[in-house]
């Protein structure tokens, strides 16, 4: 669909009748995409794949919400329900939330933002896309053959000794997908270290880069641990070993330690890139330098480091030592500090800024709201006594959806709306996009806020039926999910529409500052005509300059 859009734009560029050479019209044909080593094209490939898996994951979410519309388990059998919520979790976590922002926006923007021609290892970058899809195929294979019913957490010994569903195929899928994130993270770290343009010092890097750097560190240090853990599960199941099965002498709690050592930091793999996007959006649409730039940058690193020290808070009721639990509880609360620093600094950036409520900015403001609520409930469940009450209830479900989904999706969609003109050279309809941002925000809150109440009242997660007194909140939640669904379908439609019919955006429709806005839209294959030389920090906004920078003033109207 991308090639057709470019073909069209070459024929009929309205302004000049001539399309500058860019990464989209550099080559044509399916093999020019499937064998490309251009980070921008690989980002588009990822965008397509990630969107497909998001749609699949959403389908399972829809089934869950439909089942929970009524107290009786009437839509499906309990076994089926177990598989549905497991597949929802596996697909959304491993195939959407983790790769979404780094592999799509990060891939596209990291080299451009630091003034490089490409990532350090373009072939590895392309390989990561193929590996991602291969892992996705394993998960799909398991799905069409009946799925998995262990929950996305694969807890032992159920997963290794009792479940007769496709644990091994799904596990291998997750194992393989891990390699694709490792390749992406490795590429980012090396590129950011070694390929910055002249004058691009560490403290002139956009915060988007800082947060992707922190994310990459987590990917490099965490992903191998889930890889070996899942491998042990697969081996234990395939050869009937007893590494985690207590009946055979093993220790199931060890599995949980190893699993959460990755899977807690994985939450920060999802949220940190989103925070990077938000920093860019807040600065661009309030025309101000990000307040306390260095502190925000180091807050990303602090979150990455602290994130590795809190995995035990998933195991408060598992039977770990009370001393360990206390320490994990305290460190978990410490994560609130760098997170709050970010929220406060974004808010301070807004103060006395000249704010314009463009679509990306609506997502950014929505992010701050959702993330604050998700983060505050996070400190709640980090408290030992409260967690014992709330563990395994819908309160937890609501909390992690606020952080992971509210956080990541708002950043992902906000970022897509912000850089879409850069990626395609086209604008999308302003009113529809604002409407969809509003729908996402309203729909999200209506879906997940009632779940806080449900959980607090004691509705456990992962049940397919529930007592009647919980129905009203579940109906609200399902209604919210329908609104949310519309909010996701709208952007899909107008983004595809805009590739062919959207107005030409010009190089810098937002009048924003950053190396990516100093190069044409869409950028040429080597990103810049001449190697940029950086002489100032990332957010040096001053009013007159901004006016000159705006290449497409009507984009900013209304």
């Amino acid at each position, binding site marked *: 669909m991308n090639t057709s859009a470019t073909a069209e734009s070459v024929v009929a560029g309205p302004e000049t009748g001539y399309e500058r050479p860019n990464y989209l019209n550099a080559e044509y044909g399916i093999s020019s995409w499937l064998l490309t080593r251009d980070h921008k094209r690989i980002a588009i490939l990822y965008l397509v794949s990630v969107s497909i898996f998001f749609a699949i994951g959403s389908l399972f979410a829809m089934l869950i919400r439909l089942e929970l519309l009524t107290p009786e388990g009437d839509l499906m059998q309990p076994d089926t329900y177990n598989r549905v919520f497991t597949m929802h979790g596996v697909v959304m976590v491993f195939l959407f939330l983790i790769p979404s922002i780094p592999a799509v926006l990060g891939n596209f923007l990291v080299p451009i933002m630091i003034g490089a021609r*490409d*990532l350090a290892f373009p072939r*590895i970058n392309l390989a990561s896309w193929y590996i991602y899809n291969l892992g996705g195929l394993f998960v799909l294979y398991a799905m069409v053959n009946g799925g998995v019913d262990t929950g996305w957490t694969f807890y032992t010994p159920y997963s290794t000794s009792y479940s007769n569903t496709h644990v091994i195929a799904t596990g291998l899928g997750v194992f393989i997908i891990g390699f694709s994130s490792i390749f992406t993270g490795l590429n980012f770290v090396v590129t950011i270290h070694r*390929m910055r343009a002249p004058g691009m010092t560490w403290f002139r890097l956009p915060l988007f880069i800082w947060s992707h750097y922190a994310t990459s560190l987590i990917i490099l240090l965490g992903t*191998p641990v889930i890889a070996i853990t899942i491998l042990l599960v697969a081996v234990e199941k395939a*050869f009937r070993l*007893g590494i985690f099965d207590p009946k055979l002498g093993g220790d199931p709690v060890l599995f949980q330690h190893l699993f959460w050592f990755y899977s807690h930091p994985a939450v920060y793999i999802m949220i940190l890139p989103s925070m990077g996007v938000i920093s860019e959006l807040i600065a661009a649409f309030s025309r101000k330098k990000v307040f306390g730039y260095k502190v925000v940058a180091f807050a990303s690193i602090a979150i990455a480091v602290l994130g590795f020290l809190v995995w035990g808070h998933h195991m408060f009721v598992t039977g770990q030592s009370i001393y360990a639990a206390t320490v994990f509880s305290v460190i978990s609360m410490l994560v609130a500090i760098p997170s709050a620093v970010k929220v406060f600094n974004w808010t301070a950036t807004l103060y006395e800024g000249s704010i314009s409520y463009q679509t990306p900015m609506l997502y950014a403001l929505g992010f701050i709201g959702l993330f604050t609520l998700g983060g505050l409930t996070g400190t709640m469940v980090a408290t030992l006594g409260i967690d014992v009450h709330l563990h395994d209830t819908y309160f937890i479900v609501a909390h992690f959806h606020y952080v992971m989904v509210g956080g990541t999706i708002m950043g992902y969609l906000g970022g897509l709306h912000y850089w879409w003109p850069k990626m395609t050279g086209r604008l999308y309809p302003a009113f529809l996009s604002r409407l969809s941002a509003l729908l996402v925000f309203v729909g999200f809150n209506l879906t997940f806020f009632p779940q806080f109440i449900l959980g607090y009242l004691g509705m456990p997660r992962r049940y397919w039926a529930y007592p009647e007194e919980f129905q009203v909140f579940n109906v609200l939640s399902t209604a919210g999910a329908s609104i949310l669904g519309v909010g996701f379908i709208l952007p899909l439609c107008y983004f595809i529409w805009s590739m062919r019919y959207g107005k030409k955006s010009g190089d810098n429709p937002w009048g924003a500052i950053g190396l990516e806005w100093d190069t044409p839209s869409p950028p040429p294959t080597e990103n810049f005509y001449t190697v940029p030389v950086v002489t100032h920090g990332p957010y040096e906004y001053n009013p007159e300059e901004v006016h000159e920078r705006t290449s497409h003033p009507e984009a900013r109207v209304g």
Partner: protein
Amino acid sequence: MASTAYDRHLEGLAAPHGGHHPSLQHQFDSLEQQKESSTLGMWMFLITEIMFFGGLFTAYVIYRSTLHGVFAEASHELNVTLGALNTAVLIGSSLTMALAIRAAQVNRQKLILLFLVLTILLGTTFLGVKTIEYRDKFHHHLVPGPHFAPAEAALQQVADKAQIFFSLYFIMTGIHALHMIIGIGVLLWLLVLSWKGRFDSTYYNPLECAGLYWHFVDIVWIFLFPLLYLIGAHTH
């Protein structure tokens, strides 16, 4: 690691940057930047490898501390002589690997080939010895799973605990052996490139990266050998 294969495709494309080294890829400004990048990339990859084996070593440490006596007893079933032999073989292969890089640095093309072949042979020897050890374990019913039946009376009583030791033994040495096989594959590929005269003192980065990987796999074994073979030594 893959940065090395990319160059040939780009020989044709390198023309716009005129007069550059044929192995310089388009996204880099200089061979030095390319070298620094791929070396850093290799180190990052090795960090992921450390975390990967780290998960296994963590499992080992946990079970070793809770099942100390069982592990010491089970360790006696391993063949220390073959393990020691393999340790020597692997350290030797690290030496020849380092010498191959040295040969490239001083432009001795034939020596590169010789040392690469020696490294590959030593690596294969290691795998051969490992195969013999694995075969013995099968014969003695020491492979964990439904057919696990140690002959040693002391192990029979704690069979469910002892199988954890052997599970870890097979998984850790198995994954290590898999790394050896991948390493030998990489070295064979570098052998072909060296045969074509691709490496000299201006460009030998692929050799260096492969060397880093090879030494890493070697070091993993240096930890595996005492932790698996020698922990029972003082009890007999």
